[in-house]
């Protein structure tokens, strides 16, 4: 399998809010020798329903994801949270279903979070000819960290980006308070958590915040902007792919000519 066929699980947030992460993922996967396809009949991994305890809808969404990605060698998502859903929770959803259980398990075994896939499965050790001048800090999103063991991989690749200095974020492993529907259901608690997080980010003096999950990034970037901070936020894949010409998360588009 020297050129594996990878199905990109775009994730609903990247599809809707930040396509550049999807393009970055495709570019990185292609650099890692993969042949990438993007099935059009994908929507979301079903986490909002799953986390709300709605197993019926979770199952039917999961079935459509399984169908759409059945034929790929790997399924890769630029999100630890969505990859974790496919890997850790789909098998659970169908554990009593003799028809779907093997299909869910099969999908789960081939599903990976983007950066850990590049490093652990494709053996990527560096990004070549990519530079980005920044004092960066990195937040470990919870699902990627605890469900999938994503910790060293992004740091390893970021260390090879020219001009980028990575300062460790104190409490990098503490949840930012996003939690999917949590931030809508308990806005006040979520606010305290994200405010604690942005205080830590600001204290590092970083001008760039990186993470591997757009949900967390939108939460932290939204709070930083509300606080009037100039720290920018980007998905780690954008920096690794060198796709940083566009605006950072929550920043305006640059007027033409500037």
């Amino acid at each position, binding site marked *: 399998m020297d050129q594996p066929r990878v199905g990109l699980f775009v994730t609903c947030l990247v599809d*809707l809010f930040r396509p550049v992460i*999807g393009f970055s993922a495709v570019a990185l996967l292609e650099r890692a020798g993969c042949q990438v396809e993007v099935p059009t009949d994908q929507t979301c991994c079903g986490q909002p329903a799953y986390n709300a305890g709605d197993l019926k809808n979770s199952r039917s*969404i999961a079935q459509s994801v399984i169908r759409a990605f059945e034929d790929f060698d790997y399924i890769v998502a630029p999100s630890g949270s969505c990859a974790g859903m496919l890997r850790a929770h789909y098998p659970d959803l169908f554990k009593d279903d003799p028809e779907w259980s093997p299909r869910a398990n099969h999908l789960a075994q081939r599903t990976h979070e983007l950066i850990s896939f590049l490093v652990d499965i494709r053996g990527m050790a560096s990004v070549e000819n990519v530079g980005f001048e920044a004092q960066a800090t990195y937040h470990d999103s919870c699902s990627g960290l605890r469900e999938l063991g994503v910790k060293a991989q992004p740091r390893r690749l970021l260390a090879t980006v020219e001009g980028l200095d990575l300062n460790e974020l104190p409490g990098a492993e503490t949840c930012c308070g996003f939690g999917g529907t949590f931030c809508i259901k308990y806005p006040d608690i979520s*606010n305290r958590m994200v405010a604690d997080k942005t205080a830590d980010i600001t204290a590092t003096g970083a001008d760039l915040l990186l993470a591997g999950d757009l949900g967390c990034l939108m939460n932290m970037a939204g709070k930083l902007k*509300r606080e009037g901070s100039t720290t920018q936020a980007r998905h780690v894949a954008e920096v690794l792919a060198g796709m940083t010409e566009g605006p950072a998360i929550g920043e305006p588009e640059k007027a033409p000519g500037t």
Partner: protein
Amino acid sequence: MKPQSHLFKENAKKALNDANLARALNNMKAGFQDKRRATIAKLPEFQDLRDQARDLKNHTLENLDFYLSRFEDRVTEKGGHVHWARTPAEAREAVLEICRSVDAKTVTKGKSMVTEEIGLNDFLIESGLTPIETDLGEYIIQLRHELPSHIIAPAIHLNKEDVAETFRENHTQLDPNRRLDQVQDFTDEARAILRQKFQSADVGITGANFLIAETGSTVIVTNEGNGDLTQVLPKVHIVVASIEKTIPTLEDSATILRVLARSATGQEYSTYTTFSTGPRRPGDLDGPEQFHVVILDNGRSALLGTEAQDTLRCIRCGACMNHCPVYGSVGGHAYGWVVPGPIGAALDPGLIGLEEAHDLPNASTFCGKCAEVCPMKIPLPKIMHHWRVKEHEAKLSPPRFRQGLAMWAWFARRPRLYRLGANAAIGMLGRLGAKRGRFAKLPLAGGWTAHRDLPAPSRGTFQQQWARHKRSQAPSSS
């Protein structure tokens, strides 16, 4: 106690506005987390011990009837008495009956969450007795008529100033100008006052960290030594414990003790670990004349064999709350019942009912930190998820949330329609937001934009842009 968990949202909001509480919680987090990390780093077999502890407790729970009756037999052999209580009321009655039989007036108490659970203090007061908490934290909240806000540090929500004020209000016999600004001052003052009470107590009540089936012993773990005085000085010692505290052997207690204090306070061992086996024997230098164990079920046996069974492995170390960012934001009182934090969110719906407690398992981001630190490897988020499933089945979540979710799921299952809707919505939002790059306010997103901006989408979804990209590549690549 009467649960207040249905008021979680309101109480959480109040807690978030309490600057003193925020300060106390921040101090707590830093202290407990750093200490735990440091002690665990010194014990390479810590992870193996967690597995052992989990396995031995699973084994016990699978054979709980056997070990409980074995425990009863041993206690009886040693001259003690076991009292079975299905409900809090039965447990309270059992305690009262013992107190009445020796004509007790004053009862000293060691720290015990189960006696909080059954509302023992109020009941004893109503029955004409005087219960006195002897653990410093419990003593403080007893004076303040509050509930514990943490299972190992009941007064963690208070600052030094709060405690000084409480002492000045209550200990009016002392010099009003005395110094009260160090923890040591509080300890000294409480000790001096409690010493007289220990002497006059007729009955001492403690909880138990373990009930050892092999020997009929009960075990308590403390740092202040108050538990020992509570159970040794009075004529009668009553242990109140719940069924899941049982473990098979003395050896097993050693396994769990090695993870308990490390997870709780970051100590290698607590200062005092006290084993009590039966009443004083002829020739013993001290010990009570009577030894009673009241064993409470209160809904726990109904959890056996369910997805929530794993909660019964809990050894109440508090590590999950010490590391929980939600608990760290709102503190323990917001949870509205004796056991707060992640273990409360996983256990309370089973004990006080889902209708009362359904907010608790929802108030979690599923970040997984609790399960990562739990010495008994309880899959806390998984159990919270189980309660959400039950909540959904029982239609207990807010109707607006359910409707929104149902509508979203309807689209998510129909990729084509979803795409049409997404393209339209994103097209509009993208145009509206392009100039600022974010929204400070947006209809239907009030929960989000109340506290933070919403980053605007770019022009067009990824799928739209990808399709365009593919089309533009098509001629050259063919």
